[in-house]
């Protein structure tokens, strides 16, 4: 061994360390890759050695190589080895490497769970810190689930250094394991008021991050944050809180009103720019949320805009940038106040800083109006010409298109101008956005019918000059425009002045260099143009010319037939045949134009992109159902080869479509139309309700816009849009003049000069009449489309899972899974949580994610249950139910109490209780509505256990339906029953049990109580007290107080003295019972204790009220410090072997109850779980809240039971045994 060590350290001497590696790489600049690969080989050798120092050194080097881009995931296992070193130095290296290269896909990550848990609980705070830091980078859903509880415990660590890390990492845990949010939230909230500023800041950080995604769930924290905002001096915290308020105000306008004042004060007072900026931002958010009808806030808006203007004018580019950014937020709701700063923003477009220019562009988007659109776009076009970098220019291009097309072309008054702008944009070199321009062209041409004539002319010009666009291969992006141009020219060929010329342009040899999909459109639309040419020639009677055109087509089309692109080839050869056929007809002097045109008859309507999705599935249509019976497998195998041959045959005899005679064609068309008319899925051309207005005048009735001949159409490359600007100005001036004239007539007495000034300003946007009558066709949607917005939601959003209601009281089923063991299933007897581990994990995930759905489901489930109750349910169902039930219950048992949870529990819930053997029926508090059932139940007690369980279930369901917490006796008793007898249905049924025992009683009130340990806090127990009103009067103002001992104290709200009682948070009408919980801190748990206490209350009778009191003694048994904890049988065996445990024994005589009853009782009353049971012998385990192990070996003999016990605290053990003995002596 020693020799090995020496050898190891000698080896180490020749290893490179990180510095050597870096130096080596720097010295091998020429053959770096080769050098590194030899280094990696060395590292691999080092990793094979046993010496952990060598390994750590190797891993450290790997981390460096990872930064250089080398994949080091192959060393994942070695990294884990280094992580598990006991030395901090190596551990830190391991965790660093892991945080750099582990991710959810790393398979060995699951091996780390226990190591991380160990490190988290390390006594050295830096071990814990390093583990937390590492975990924050590679936490997976599994790790999050397994470690959530441990991390939650760390949130209350004594060291602030650990606390703040634990708080921060909780956010990552929530993201990966959303179920942990609710149980952990109360503690997180607590940390908002942590004495350490770092922890506080971390908590604010996490809550802000959570609230940003789902603000509505955090509204209730607003007062707390408000307090923090006014008290904190830490700018980081302030900024976070102010940002958070920005997210909350849209949901709660009242909050906004409250915020305005302190925020305005901060704006005036703070010297920190970052804080000022965030304040302005939040004020903006507040104002947005208040936007309507709050005239008195115009001052705040002015303040913000003013401050922002100062920022924008600042020489610091950062402030300028942020100023613009915030300005764009104001713009959305208060465009007027921003528009007055247009000069400043246009100025920013000239800034040398691209970020600032982009921000200014964003602002422009919101600043355009009908009035200034042309002017602004002109400025932008100038910038497009000047811009040198392609990215910024592309950004400009998209912005121009965005600005113009926003809200359905709202601001465009002259579409000719817009088309010219688009055409001008095609001259941009090397832009990526050709398709964007193309789609705009198509959109405008299709939807703005009035513009088609002009658009077609422009497109024809583009096609004519296509060589300019497509000539340069580098300009490839822009040739997409030709796609649109060809389609528009073809589709609206009736508007073309000279279709032949365009047709010729489209058939030039150069076209074959274009991308395939564009060529395909060319070919298709060439035929449309051909049809147009034929029509014109034939109507003009120029048959010769028509034939020439046909010949030209036959001559040119073969170049496309040869295309390598399948689509082009297919279309071309198909069309070539068609044209040849036409030629034949033409030779026979038949006029064909009408027929050819008919090929393309009908108009295409714009269809909304989502239309297909919105078509509702008609009732009774099941798309997944088989239409015909699926062929059996053997059959299909036999027939497969046959089918191939059969299919081949008809192919040859299939008639060619082109050979159909016209009559047949017409008939088919008619039939198809008929079919379409009857087919609900076909999107008809008939007007849908929302666009009915636009179809009323037919296409022909729309006035075709006269083309302004002053526009030099034929000169490409000359900006023409400027012309429109002038024209537009003139036109507006004219309009204005006209209006003025009208006004003049009306009010002649007014002074001319001031009036002009007036009218220029008061002219609202609506006054600007569009240049031509324009119908903007809305996109079609199928009739009765579903108005759903589902398609806008992203189902993959990880934050959605965190949309969890945090104000609802915590249900037991939601507790964080506490580290559990999986008992072996091979044994005849199940440990209590056999189903828990499995059941708990499966349904839980889905359970919480959609709470709302769950509620609904619960309702329906309940209804089902009701139905079931009426029938005697089939056994199968019952078993299933039971199993499920058992899972839930067991979960309840192993889950633990939480202080905060206990607080929540003091809400008005009415738990029901089950009569027990120990307690006579009348002694048990009941909620009113359930009392009749109770007696019924008593009678039924003798019935089979199945029935009984079902009854429990029933009750539980009822409680659920009332949305009340159901942590009450019957539930637990049943869980306990199952503990011992899960699979022993044939055995005798167990009597119901309760742990609630009498605390005190008088003629007014009765109290029963139960004590439960709190695993998450080793020093606390929770006392649940059920108060029941025994009299016919109203009881109120109940106050619960105990005399604290040194060891055990009642946890009182902060600020209260030790003599103050705790108010019971409810009142009791006659006959009603309710449960309240009180938390006690305990120091030593080895001895049972009794505390004296008093309950004071007011009895309100008809003739006044009297003060009453009731003294009681709270008995803290040692049992109440035990928590049911499941245990593996092998872990149990190991535990027994360890020498730390002290032995004790107990013998119970004259016990004549079935063994499983006995076990169940121990399980239930004393919080044990069965580890293993063989015949009449069983081992049991439990753990105290302070971590003591208690092991029992229970043997049953004739009429007697012997219990051998082991525990690492003899005093605790003897008391527990004493209490067990007590249970059985009093009971039997």
């Amino acid at each position, binding site marked *: 061994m020693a020799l090995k060590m020496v050898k190891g*350290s000698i080896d*180490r*001497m020749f290893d490179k*360390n*990180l*510095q*050597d590696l*870096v*130096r080596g790489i*720097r010295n091998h600049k020429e053959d770096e890759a080769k050098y590194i690969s030899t280094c990696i080989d060395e590292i691999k050798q080092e990793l094979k050695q046993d010496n952990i*120092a060598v390994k750590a*050194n190797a891993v*450290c080097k790997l*981390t*460096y190589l*990872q*930064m*250089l*881009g*080398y*994949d080091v995931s192959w060393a994942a296992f070695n990294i884990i080895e280094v992580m598990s070193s006991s*030395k*901090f*130095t*190596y551990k*830190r*290296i391991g965790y*660093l490497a892991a945080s*750099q290269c582990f991710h959810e896909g790393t398979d060995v990550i699951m091996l780390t769970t226990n190591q991380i848990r160990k490190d988290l609980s390390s006594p*050295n705070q*830096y071990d814990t810190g390093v583990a937390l*830091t590492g975990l924050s*980078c590679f*936490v997976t859903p599994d790790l999050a689930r397994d470690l959530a509880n441990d991390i939650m415990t760390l949130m209350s660590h004594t060291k602030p250094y650990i606390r703040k*890390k634990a708080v*921060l*990492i909780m956010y*990552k845990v929530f993201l990966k394991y959303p179920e942990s949010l609710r149980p952990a939230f109360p503690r997180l909230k607590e940390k908002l008021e942590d004495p350490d500023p*770092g922890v506080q*800041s*971390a908590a604010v*950080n*996490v809550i802000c*991050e959570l609230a940003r995604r789902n603000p509505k769930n955090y509204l209730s924290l607003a007062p707390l944050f408000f307090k923090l905002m006014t008290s904190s001096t830490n700018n*980081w915290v302030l*900024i976070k809180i102010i940002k958070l308020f920005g997210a909350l105000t849209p949901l709660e306008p009242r909050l906004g009103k409250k915020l305005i004042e302190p925020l305005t004060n901060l704006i005036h007072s703070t010297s920190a720019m*970052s804080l000022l*900026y*965030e304040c302005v931002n939040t004020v903006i958010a507040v104002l947005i949320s208040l936007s309507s009808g709050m005239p008195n806030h115009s001052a705040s808006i002015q303040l913000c805009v003013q401050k922002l203007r100062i920022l924008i004018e600042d020489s610091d*580019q*950062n402030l*300028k*940038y*942020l100023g613009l950014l915030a300005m764009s937020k104001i713009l959305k709701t208060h465009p007027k106040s921003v528009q007055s700063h247009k000069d400043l923003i246009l100025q920013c477009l000239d800034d*040398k*800083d*691209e*970020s*600032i220019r*982009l921000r200014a562009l964003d602002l422009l988007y919101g600043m355009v109006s009908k009035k200034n659109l042309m002017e602004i776009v002109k400025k932008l076009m100038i910038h497009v010409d000047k811009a040198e970098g392609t990215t910024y220019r592309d950004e400009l291009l998209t912005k121009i298109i965005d600005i113009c097309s926003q809200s359905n072309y709202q601001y465009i008054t002259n579409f000719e101008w817009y088309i010219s702008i688009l055409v001008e944009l095609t001259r941009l070199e090397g832009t990526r956005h050709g398709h964007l321009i193309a789609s705009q062209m198509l959109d405008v041409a299709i939807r703005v019918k009035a513009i088609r004539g002009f658009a077609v002319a422009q497109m024809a010009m583009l096609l004519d000059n296509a060589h300019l666009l497509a000539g340069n291969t580098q300009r490839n992006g822009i040739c997409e425009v030709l796609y649109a141009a060809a389609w528009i020219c073809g589709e609206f060929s009736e508007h073309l002045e000279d279709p032949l010329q365009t047709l010729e342009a489209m058939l030039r040899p150069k076209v074959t260099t274009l991308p395939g999909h564009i060529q395909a459109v060319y070919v298709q639309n060439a035929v449309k143009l051909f049809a147009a040419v034929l029509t014109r020639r034939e109507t003009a009677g120029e048959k010769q010319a028509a034939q020439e055109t046909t010949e030209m087509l036959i001559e040119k089309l073969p170049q496309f037939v040869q295309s390598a692109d399948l689509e082009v080839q297919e279309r071309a050869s198909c069309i070539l045949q068609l044209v040849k056929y036409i030629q034949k007809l033409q030779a026979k002097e038949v006029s064909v134009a009408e027929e050819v045109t008919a090929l393309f008859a009908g108009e295409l309507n714009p269809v909304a992109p989502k239309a297909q999705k919105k078509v509702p599935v008609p009732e009774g249509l099941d798309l997944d159902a088989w239409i015909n019976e699926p062929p059996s497998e053997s059959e299909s195998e036999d027939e497969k080869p046959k089918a191939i041959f059969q299919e081949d045959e008809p192919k040859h005899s299939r008639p060619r479509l082109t050979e159909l005679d016209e009559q047949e064609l017409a008939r088919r068309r008619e039939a198809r139309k008929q079919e379409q008319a009857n087919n609900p899925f076909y999107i008809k051309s008939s007007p849908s309700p929302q666009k009915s207005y636009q179809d009323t005048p037919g296409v022909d009735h729309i006035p075709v816009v006269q083309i302004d001949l002053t526009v030099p159409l034929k000169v490409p490359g000359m900006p023409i849009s400027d012309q429109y600007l002038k024209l537009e100005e003139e036109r507006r001036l004219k309009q204005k003049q006209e209006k003025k004239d009208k006004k003049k007539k009306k009010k002649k007495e007014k002074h001319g000069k001031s009036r002009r000034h007036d009218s220029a300003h008061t002219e609202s946007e609506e006054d600007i009449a569009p240049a031509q009558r324009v119908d903007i066709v809305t996109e079609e949607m199928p009739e009765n489309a579903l108005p759903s917005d589902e398609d806008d939601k992203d189902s993959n959003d990880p934050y959605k899972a965190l949309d969890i209601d945090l104000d609802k009281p915590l249900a037991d089923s939601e507790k964080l899974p506490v580290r559990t063991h999986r008992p072996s299933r091979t044994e005849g007897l199940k440990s209590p949580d056999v189903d828990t581990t499995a059941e708990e994990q499966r349904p839980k995930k889905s359970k919480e994610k959609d709470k709302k759905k769950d509620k609904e489901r619960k309702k329906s489930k309940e209804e089902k249950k009701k139905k079931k109750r009426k029938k005697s349910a089939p056994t199968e169902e019952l078993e299933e139910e039971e199993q499920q039930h058992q899972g839930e219950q067991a979960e309840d048992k192993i889950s633990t109490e939480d202080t905060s949870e206990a607080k929540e529990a003091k809400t008005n819930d009415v738990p029901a209780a089950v009569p027990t053997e120990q307690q006579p029926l009348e002694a048990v508090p009941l909620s009113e509505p359930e009392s009749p059932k109770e007696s019924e139940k008593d009678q039924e007690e003798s019935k089979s256990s199945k029935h009984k369980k079902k009854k429990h279930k029933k009750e539980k369901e009822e409680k659920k339906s009332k949305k009340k917490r159901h942590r009450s006796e019957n539930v637990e008793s049943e869980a306990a029953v199952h503990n011992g007898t899960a699979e022993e249905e044939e055995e005798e049924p167990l009597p119901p049990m309760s742990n609630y025992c009498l605390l005190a009683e008088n003629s007014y009130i009765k109290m029963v109580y139960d004590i439960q340990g709190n695993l998450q806090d080793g020093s606390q127990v929770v006392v649940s007290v059920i108060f029941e009103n025994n009299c016919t009067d109203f009881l109120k103002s109940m106050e619960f107080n105990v005399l604290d001992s040194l060891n055990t104290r009642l946890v009182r709200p902060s600020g209260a003295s030790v003599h103050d009682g705790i108010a019971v948070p409810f009142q009791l009408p006659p006959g009603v019972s309710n449960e309240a919980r009180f938390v006690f801190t305990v120091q030593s748990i080895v001895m049972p204790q009794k505390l004296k206490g008093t309950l004071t209350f007011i009895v309100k009778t008809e003739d006044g009220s009297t003060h009453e009191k009731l003294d009681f003694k709270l008995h803290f048994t040692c049992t109440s410090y035990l928590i049911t904890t499941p245990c593996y049988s092998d872990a149990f065996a190991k535990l027994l072997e360890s020498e730390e445990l002290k032995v004790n024994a107990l013998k119970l005589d004259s016990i004549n109850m079935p063994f499983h009853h006995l076990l169940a009782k121990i399980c239930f009353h004393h919080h044990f779980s069965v580890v293993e049971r063989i015949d009449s012998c069983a081992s049991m385990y439990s753990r105290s809240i302070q971590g003591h192990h208690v092991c029992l070996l229970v043997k049953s003999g004739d009429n007697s039971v012997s219990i051998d016990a082991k525990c690492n605290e003899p005093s605790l053990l003897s008391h527990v045994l004493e209490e067990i003995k007590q249970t059985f002596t009093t009971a039997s």
Partner: protein
Amino acid sequence: MIKAILVFNNHGKPRLIRFYQYFPEDMQQQIIRETFHLVSKRDDNVCNFLEGGSLIGGSDYKLIYRHYATLYFVFCVDSSESELGILDLIQVFVETLDKCFENVCELDLIFHMDKVHYILQEVVMGGMVLETNMNEIVGQVENQSRLEKSEGGLSGAPARAVSAVKNMNLPEIPRNINIGDINIKVPNLSPFV
């Protein structure tokens, strides 16, 4: 949330990379290249914010960077972080490096990448700001180095001696030359309180 922290020099060589979201190695390198490309062509007197590159983030993300002498410190953050706050945080980080390394220069970052990571871990954890108080950060870093020293360090004395011997045999290796001018100058900006 902070999505990534990148430190690279004027030539785009990475000196520290810390992604708080998983990217495969080649993607990481591509992001570094793209970020370097974006940042390096900007003058020193333009603003320190950049709309996120196409690779990292999306519209919600921003690059916030500072340029010190030969190094760029780039933080990629989403909209929940205050822009000016992050600028201050970079300052805090660099000042902390300056304290821990005593006049930090690029070479410190080159040869002690691990240590830089440990310092960063005290500032940012899992993409969230952990501590902004420099004294607290320095204190924790020093405590941990002390702990490491008490354990004997990673490469104990023998290894160091050997590495010295190894280097003696190669006198032509240029060691620690011209570091004088690449000290990162930490301008006196208003500290973040």
